């Protein structure tokens, strides 16, 4: 339960016990950790623990790194964050509330090209995540349009669920142990990985030593930021007033797409984000490209408020059907042009017992 409090606590003081906890989960939210000691402790623990390599055993070893391996694993309690509740189409208190309202409120992004973005020509939200959200609304309320989209900044996804602003978050949200302690995830609906994006002729070659001395941009509260906080290879990735009133919003920005703006303006040298989102950025600027290989393996899930089990089961039920056909159609429509070569959705994993 303490984890829940941490979400809102903001920058944590560099207490020793906290540092350990922070190193393992949610370090990204603990921006403003000025303490070098705390950082050192976090890095040291990360290296020493050599946790269960992420959550899947099928990771290519080349994609692994000390930094990446620490993402999403809390020793002891959280071995397999992707395992979700078994599917069910039964109702429950949270589904009843949605039906009473007549609308499903979903937190989405409007800046992730091909995932959830505002089509400037029509002003409508479109994308892979949007299609999935509409499928869930159709299943619960019988209409694809019985839905209210709320744009949620990356670092507000969990807060939006906790304070009831939205019922669900369908927003390229990576499932990991830190977050699984605060929100309830559905089964995985997409596999992605963190990757570096830079101009074609950039000396940056990937998530490696070529980042040394470079300025790197990531979204506030993203897994990319957490990865950089664990190992930035000597790159600059923080703003002086992060999380304060005078936040410069140069190295850490509200949305990953803002990173592309900073990159094009020459204010940063590279961007770290999910390859799925980075592909969307590259599709908007032919002069940038993905560098190196994805250095993590992550899975996107639909998030609900912790405890809304009926809703999670229902979403899992929708996903069972979605994987059977609609998933591939959505992939063909939105993602294949920018993210080719994916043969199908990741298989669901369910919690036993």
């Amino acid at each position, binding site marked *: 339960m303490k984890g829940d409090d941490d979400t809102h606590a903001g920058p944590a003081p560099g207490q020793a016990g906290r540092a350990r906890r922070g190193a393992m989960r949610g370090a990204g939210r603990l921006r403003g950790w000025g303490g070098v000691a705390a950082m050192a402790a976090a890095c040291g623990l990360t290296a020493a623990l050599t946790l269960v390599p992420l959550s899947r055993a099928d990771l290519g070893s080349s994609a692994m790194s000390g930094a990446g391996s620490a993402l999403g694993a809390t020793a002891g309690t959280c071995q397999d964050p992707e395992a979700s509740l078994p599917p069910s189409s039964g109702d429950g208190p949270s589904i009843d509330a949605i039906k009473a309202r007549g*609308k499903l*409120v979903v937190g989405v*992004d*409007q*800046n*992730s*090209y091909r995932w959830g*973005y*505002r*089509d*400037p*020509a*029509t*002003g*409508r939200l479109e994308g892979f995540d949007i299609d999935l959200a509409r499928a869930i609304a159709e299943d619960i309320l019988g209409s694809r349009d*019985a*839905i*209210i*989209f*709320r*744009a*949620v*900044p990356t670092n*507000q996804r969990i*807060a939006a669920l906790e*304070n009831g*602003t939205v019922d669900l978050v369908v927003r390229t949200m990576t499932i990991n142990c830190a977050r699984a302690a605060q929100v309830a995830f559905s089964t995985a609906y997409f596999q992605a990985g963190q990757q570096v994006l830079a101009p074609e002729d950039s000396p940056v070659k990937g998530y490696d030593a070529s980042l040394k001395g470079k300025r790197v941009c990531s979204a506030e509260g993203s897994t990319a930021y957490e990865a950089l906080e664990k190992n930035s290879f000597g790159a600059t990735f923080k703003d002086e007033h992060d999380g304060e*009133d005078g936040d410069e*919003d140069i190295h850490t920005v*509200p*949305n990953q*797409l*803002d990173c*592309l*703006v900073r990159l*094009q*303006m020459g204010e940063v040298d590279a961007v770290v984000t999910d390859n799925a989102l980075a592909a969307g950025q590259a599709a*908007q*600027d032919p002069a940038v490209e993905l560098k190196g290989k994805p250095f993590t393996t992550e899975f996107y899930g639909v998030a609900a408020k912790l405890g809304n089990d009926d809703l999670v089961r229902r979403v899992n039920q929708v996903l069972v059907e979605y994987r059977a056909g609609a998933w591939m159609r959505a992939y063909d429509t939105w993602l294949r042009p920018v993210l080719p070569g994916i043969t199908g959705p990741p298989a669901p994993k369910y919690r036993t017992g």
Partner: protein
Amino acid sequence: MTYAPDAPAAVPAARSAPVAPGVPGPPPATPPAARGAWAGGWSRLRAEATTEPGRLLILGAVLAALVVVFGAVTAYEVSDRAAAADDVVSRSQPLSADAADIYRSLADADTAAAGGFLAGAQEPADVRERYERDITTASRLLIKAAANTDGSSRSARDIATLNEHLPRYTGLVERARAANRQGLPLGGAYLRYANQQMSTHLLPAAERLYEAETARLDQDDRSARGWPFLSLALGVVVVAALLRAQRRTYLRTNRVFNRGLLAATVASTVMLLWLAAGHTLARAGLNEARAHGQDSLKVLNEARINSLKARANENLTVVARGAVLTADGKRDKYETEYGTGMGKLSAALAEAGRLADDSAGGGPVADAVQRVEEWKKRHEDARDTDDAGDYEGALAKVIGVEDSTGESFDQVDAALKKALAHEQGEFTRAAEDGRGALTGLPVGAGALAVVGAAGAIMGINRRLSEYR
């Protein structure tokens, strides 16, 4: 050393010439002789002060000098105030108005940019034109402001900041447009970035510039209204001295009038009255310009700026769809700032209504108040529509042509523009009246001083001649 004693020596020597014709002028080149003349002059003066012609001579010189000094000081002090009044009318007030206009143009451009974005890939022509006009106005007024600003001042730095960031801002907006046209969400990201640049660099600099120009206006206004105490005091002294001289003449000669002295007294009195009346009128004009023009202009500008801020935030609320939150992460940032802007707008309008002194000024303000109320209602309606999940419906209620909050904003802006034009007219008229009250006074003071001094000398000479 050689010439220093020489020059002053010439004055008493020359003045004493008519009564002491036997004494030659001071020998020019030899210092001992010059010192002798100097010392001799003073001792003669002292000696003459014991005789009536000598006393008359001194009296005449003193009176003439007093009148001339009075004229000169009046001319100087009044010129100073007239220049300040002229600055108020033709320089600092226009510059203050320009600075307000720079701010308004920039905020309006930002609003138009966000509005055009909301309208879709094909930006409406009138929104585009509005943006272009705003940027052109801001650029033009910046050049004017730069030409009127001392290069080392704080305002010059703000103008430099504005000049530096304005092209960057327009560049970002053009990038946003280009991406929008291609159907890329990157356009929205650029628009956010442009808005951030506007609100963190451009608008604060424009606000500082406006404050500095307005402070300069206040200073010029104060200088123009300051009483010319020295002139007035001198005037009283001169008139009193002239009257005393005439009384002296009357007591000694039993003649009621000495025409020369009478002319000097009349000239000095006229000058004193002109000075007092002219300055009182000028003050009245400037006071009126201040009370009925400048104070109203200040709150109306504030109202207009806040209506713009509120409108920009209202647009951004729809653009961002809740993606940007306040620092505590609890409320929508743009919606909160919209509320703040509307609150300030209402407060400024209430103040403007209080200051409006005639129906021509009060009418547009009352109109604006009513439109603001309607705007608030429409905004609530649009918010409710959005909260109910009808984004397109809400969008139409914000940027639609009819019955939208955009229409309300345009109406408020038009009413405020009208009120501003009226108050600007009031200000200019009153301030020009004030400035006009000082017209001719410096020249008149010089002329009257010459007349008065001549009269005093002539009057005394007439008495002197009786001793020859």
